[in-house]
């Protein structure tokens, strides 16, 4: 699950803090001993990050240009662009995986996220039991996607699942194998993912909506705008920081989707995803390091787009300060 720091500057609609922001001390002002302590406080986390995240990322890029069976290091040899040419031309699950990732993204963006927004908008009103509804929609967010896969497996089971029983097809030859049939299993998995994603988005928007100054809405109402107009013309634009977070989260969740397809069928037969292909080439009996790494680099490059977008938006202001 991604948690993105929601640096929503809802300060645009909330009054500025009364106190001046804490001024940061210069390093020069510190004693020698203090400098050492500070240096250690910085060095340890940075070292861990470097060793376990930054260097492996670079290593992935490096490995994508090699061939290696992953077993003895003397077997490692340089291979140029071979791996990339292979996955782009000959590797059968690659383009289906790209397609599925795109579908995943579009589905989340067009169905799951707006659903979350809708729920947030509806529950932001003073309805009876709004807390209760929020709790219901929120429960799946607390569950791991792997567990969600298991729970929905019971729901989708061909002969015994609730869905086929409700549709009246359970046990007959018309029963759809929701997770097994490659024509429908991607959509079945997406619905299970939406079950969770919508709740997450709902919470984010509920927080965002709380930060919207009611006076704006009152002003719009006075001007004669109805509910929908008020929302789309006034409220939504003001929630810009939240919107940015939601966009980034939706994209990143789509790229990260792995747990649920892996637990359903190992990311095969209609559920191929780039992340699952990387792992198939690493963990399965046929371990092919070079190919797996080139797939990982493709995933990395695609992920960098929303990541850079988010970083620029969040830190852009500070960098300029």
């Amino acid at each position: 699950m991604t948690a993105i720091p929601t640096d929503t500057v809802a300060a645009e609609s909330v009054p500025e803090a009364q106190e001046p922001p804490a001024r940061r001390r210069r390093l020069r002002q510190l004693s020698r001993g203090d400098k050492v302590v500070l240096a250690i406080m910085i060095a340890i986390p940075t070292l861990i990050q470097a060793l376990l995240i930054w260097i492996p990322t670079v290593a992935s890029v490096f490995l994508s240009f090699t061939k290696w069976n992953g077993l003895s290091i003397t077997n490692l040899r340089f291979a140029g662009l071979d791996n990339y040419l292979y996955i782009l031309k000959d590797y059968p699950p690659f383009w289906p995986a790209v397609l599925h990732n795109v579908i995943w993204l579009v589905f989340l963006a067009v169905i799951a996220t707006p659903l979350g927004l809708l729920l947030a908008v509806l529950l932001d009103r003073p309805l009876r039991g709004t807390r209760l509804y929020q709790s219901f929609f929120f429960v799946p967010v607390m569950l791991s996607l792997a567990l969600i896969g298991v729970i929905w497996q019971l729901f989708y089971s061909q002969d015994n699942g609730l869905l086929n029983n409700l549709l009246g097809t359970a046990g007959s030859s018309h029963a759809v194998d929701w997770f097994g049939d490659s024509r429908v299993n991607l959509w079945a998995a997406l619905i299970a993912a939406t079950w969770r994603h919508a709740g997450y988005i709902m919470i984010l928007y509920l927080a965002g909506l709380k930060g919207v100054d009611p006076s704006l809405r009152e002003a719009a109402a006075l001007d004669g705008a109805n509910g929908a107009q008020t929302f789309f013309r006034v409220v939504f634009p003001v929630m810009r920081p939240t919107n940015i977070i939601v966009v980034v989260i939706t994209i990143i969740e789509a790229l990260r989707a792995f747990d649920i397809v892996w637990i359903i069928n190992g990311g095969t037969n209609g559920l191929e995803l780039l992340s699952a292909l990387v792992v198939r080439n690493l963990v399965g009996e046929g371990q092919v390091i070079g190919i797996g790494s080139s797939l990982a680099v493709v995933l990395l490059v695609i992920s960098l787009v929303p990541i850079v977008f988010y970083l620029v938006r969040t830190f852009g202001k500070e960098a300029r300060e």
Partner: protein
Amino acid sequence: MTTTSDALTTSAIVTGQDKREAARRHGPSRAGWAVYLFLILMALIWLLPLGWSLFTSLRPYADTAKYGYFSLGGTFNVQNYIDAWNQGGFSTYFLNSVIYVVPTVILTLFLASMMAYAVSRYSWTFSLTLLIMFTAGNLLPPQVLATPLFEAFRLLKLPYWVSDSGTLLNTYISVIAVNTAFQIGFCTFVLANFMKALPNELSEAAKVDGAGVWRHYWSIVLPLSRPALAALATLEVIFIYNDFFWPLLFIQSGNRLPVTTAINNLKGEWLTNYNLLAAGAMITVIPTLVIYLLLQRHFIAGLTLGASKG
């Protein structure tokens, strides 16, 4: 007007009570029956999957074999839970989950708060660059790092008395280390934001007192960061508990898996016994539900931290 709106906004963030008052003053809310109907329908649909799992888990296998799963016949009891617990080895898996979660959360918050402190309270050349890189690290899909980390851990030879695989693979510390690294980025960012907003007077007072950097951090800034730490701790416990990928990759021995990854194996073992599988799934859900009921506010706060600066 400003004062009223201030008050409205502030308390709206807390309860929403005042908003309801405001709405009532403007007349009955147009949340008509259509909205209620929609919400009720959605809520019911939302509860179906979990409800079905719960329902299935309470029925003995013999009954569902006889009457079918979509029926009300037979008894309802918790025998499946008992069986699942015993057969599934859940006690081992939960213990493993604890072993993975507790050190990771503590290490993560400890290291992230140190870094956040250094970055937010002092200005130095690379502070922003490092902060950016920390945040970026958390946003990467973990599969990008999977291969190099797996190979690196495998090639790192350890004596057999330290690790029975002779390498860093199949050890608890491999998963703890990687999870910590992965979560430090996010926590650093959130805590840095939080610490930035702490008032200045405390630093000045500490400086006058002659307190060094460490005392300032440990005795002043950290306690003041309690709300953020609490929210992050709740969030991180859930994240790490739910983590499926790293144990899948690094742990080969079945009895060292945490509960969330173990459910994958159990799914294969109990393929036809849906009742047992449902009970197993419910057992896995219980800790999250407990945390949810007790600490929901913290979890939500963690997700939306930083929602308003100051």
